């Protein structure tokens, strides 16, 4: 046994973007055979998306985010607007254990792929639907993406500077997406275990916004206890001070630090040569936090960030640089554990990708297999998995039900 599933579990991934594809990617890490199905007309929008880069840098197959979220999958194409395409998809459903979809509510039914239909084909199939706000309810048809899901979960309403006059900010990572995906993986693992007992598949519905709301439970319960909506606290803490981010020498270099005890503060004050009675104890520091931040900003501004963090850590203060992406990859702890993995992917070459988080010694997760090119595994999957002949596959290519070149080029979506 080299991996958890050793190729004995098949996942059919017809989702797009991040939340759904992450589910398939994590099953690929476990050694499942994950088949990603795309339409040559409407292929996964992330395939042509290089977030934050100008459009001329975004030809298909060069998308960092797609190439991360679809690692380890076999890629096939099917024209889902054609009866023949749907028929072949149903044949794949027949031989699969899991079906992952994140279309808008109602789309699967219109394609004739609602749970009733697919479970009739394969009663052992576990299907997961991952709509943004749910598949029912008055606002189920509202369009949601990572950032809008994050807003509706109450996260954005809490994200602002302590003195920011109300302005709210979006997180940097579209958190609703990976959180939706992680919940999806967990749900499927539960359903698979249950299937071992019952022999039956089932439908799992996962509204992405509902997966993220638990993360702000503290604020939700706080409101119920006090009747007041918790304020955005920015970098500050409700009790502790200092607790903030300060500029150091160089261009856009910052460090984050926090003192949670008087001892930590005394070490910090010694390390930075600050001697001020206004900051003698926790309540005094909190009461004079503006002055405290000003004093720390003055003391830290001329220092080299790395040296400063090292000095503070030696003194027992909780501190780290505010890392841009480049520094995250170079973080000594992350490097020493070889968290990032190098992958050579066709078209783009070799880069480092985030590895599998859980370290499982005897059945290790593998996150180092590249994402497929559009339709890369058409022949392999349709021949080996569905038993089609070369002629049949060529015919499908000729009539455009499958293909390996995009029929429509769409930018960044």
């Amino acid at each position, binding site marked *: 046994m080299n991996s*958890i599933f050793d190729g004995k579990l098949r996942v059919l991934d017809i989702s797009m973007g991040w939340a759904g594809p992450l589910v398939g990617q*994590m099953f690929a890490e476990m050694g499942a055979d994950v088949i990603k199905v795309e339409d040559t007309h409407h292929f996964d929008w992330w395939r042509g998306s290089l977030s*934050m*880069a*100008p*459009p001329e*840098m975004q030809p298909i197959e060069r998308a*960092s*985010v797609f190439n991360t979220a679809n690692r380890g999958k076999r890629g096939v194409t099917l024209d889902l607007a054609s009866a023949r395409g749907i028929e072949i998809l149903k044949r794949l459903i027949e031989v699969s254990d899991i079906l992952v979809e994140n279309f808008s509510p109602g789309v699967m039914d219109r394609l004739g792929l609602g749970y009733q239909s697919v479970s009739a084909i394969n009663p052992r199939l576990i299907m997961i639907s991952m709509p943004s706000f749910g598949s029912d*309810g*008055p606002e189920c048809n509202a*369009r949601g*993406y990572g*950032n809008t899901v994050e807003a509706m979960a109450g996260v*954005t*309403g*809490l994200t602002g*500077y302590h003195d920011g006059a109300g*302005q*709210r*900010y*979006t997180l*940097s*990572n579209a958190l609703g997406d990976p*959180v939706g995906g*992680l919940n999806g993986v967990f749900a499927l*693992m*539960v*359903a698979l275990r*249950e299937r071992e007992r019952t022999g039956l598949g*089932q439908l799992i519905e996962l*509204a992405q916004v*509902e997966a993220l*709301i*638990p*993360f*702000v*439970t*503290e604020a939700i*319960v706080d409101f119920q206890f*006090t009747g007041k909506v918790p304020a955005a606290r920015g970098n500050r803490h409700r009790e502790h001070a200092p607790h903030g981010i300060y500029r150091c020498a160089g261009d856009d270099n*910052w460090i*984050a630090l*926090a003192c949670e005890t008087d001892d930590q503060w005394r070490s910090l004050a010694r390390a930075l040569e600050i001697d001020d009675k206004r900051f003698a104890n926790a309540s005094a520091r909190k009461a004079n936090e503006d002055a405290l931040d000003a004093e720390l900003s003055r003391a830290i501004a001329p220092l080299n960030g790395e040296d400063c963090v090292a000095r503070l850590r030696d003194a027992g203060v*909780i501190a*780290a*640089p*505010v*890392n*841009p*992406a*480049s520094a*995250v990859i170079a973080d000594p*702890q*992350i490097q*020493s554990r070889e968290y990032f993995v190098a992958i050579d992917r066709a078209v*783009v070459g070799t880069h480092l990708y*985030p590895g599998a988080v*859980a370290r499982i010694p005897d059945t290790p997760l593998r996150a180092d297999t590249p994402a497929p090119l559009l339709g890369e595994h058409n022949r392999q999957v349709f021949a080996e998995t569905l038993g089609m002949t070369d002629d049949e596959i060529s015919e499908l290519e000729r009539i455009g039900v499958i293909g390996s070149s995009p029929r429509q080029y769409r930018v*960044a979506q």
Partner: protein
Amino acid sequence: MRYRALSDVRVVDLTHFIAGPYATKLLADMGADVIKVEPVWGEGGRKLRPHRAGVVAERGGLFAFLNLNKIGVTLNLKHDRGRELLAGLLDGADLLIENFAPGTLAALGLAPDELIAKFPKLSVVSISNFGQDGPERDGKLNDLVLFARGGWTFPVGERDREPLTPPGSLAQYVAALYGAIAAMQALAARDLGLGHGQHIDVSILEATVATMIYETVTFQYTGIVRSRAGKRFAVGPFLIVTLKCKDGYAGLHCVTDKQFEGLCDLMGRRELASDPRFNTALNRMLNNDALLEIVEAFFIGRERKWLYREGQRRAIPLVPIPSVAEVLEWEQTRARNYFETIDDPVLGRIRVPGTPLRLTSHRPEASRPAPRLGEHNREIFGQRLGLSETEIETLKRAGTI
């Protein structure tokens, strides 16, 4: 809410604070038999905010949520008898989940590998700040510093100000999800052929970094390190932005040509769609400031509800930015019975998030409140481990339970 899908799974839960307890809550919500083992003075998470005014701190509101559906016992693991009783609980258990500082279990004579050798069916999931090895394994961390180090903070906030940290303990919950998945992975590996349990290592820092794929991979492809873009997610060939409106803020996610045409229509400015400054994604990036100015001026005079309704009518991902109070009252969560009212024995009635996983194989049942300190000592040590009433009393007096 609670399902019975994992009713055959037995978990011994030594976790505290947030990341560990949320991991075991996910299992408990799916019906696993989770025995939460606390020190006799209670785990630190009982003291977490928020607190209800006038209620002595047996627990705060977050503890009441994170420990729903668990059974609670106390054990002093520094006592020989305490460790013996723990071994009794581990005998026949599938999982031990813990988030102590690395090395703590070994120092107590409970090294995970030795436990697995003794109880071959058992897997141990360890969640820790930095992982079980590495030069900074024993370093200090809190949420502010975790977000900063993991890359979440640098791209957020005003260009000319300090980067802005995300709120609360979001990444602890992400790590909890990885922990709960790891627990299920251990069970799957064991039952699909491996035959024995494993010790799994989950680093909260790595779980934090795992969600940063926009940054860590994109920058290698493009050489572009995203920096702060104020109210915008980034300056790119799109407008993803939080905008001030008449009665608060709204979130706009305008990326495709279609969405941009919808936005122009919403503003009654359809001519902008063909304006040479904005007619392509590239032009919308090059003239992002000018575009933002136009959109800002429009939003400031409109109400959130109107923007949400009219925006969504045009298929634009446009939402009002709700406060947590508004999330509680949101029609959509109400219609789907998402929040659950629990009757906490100490804090009274509280509405808390329900489980996001809607399995159709079971009907969800009401959650069981978080346990009082040692609430199930009698039941577990007496009925399950077969201790007599006198033995239990003796252990109590000795401070073992």
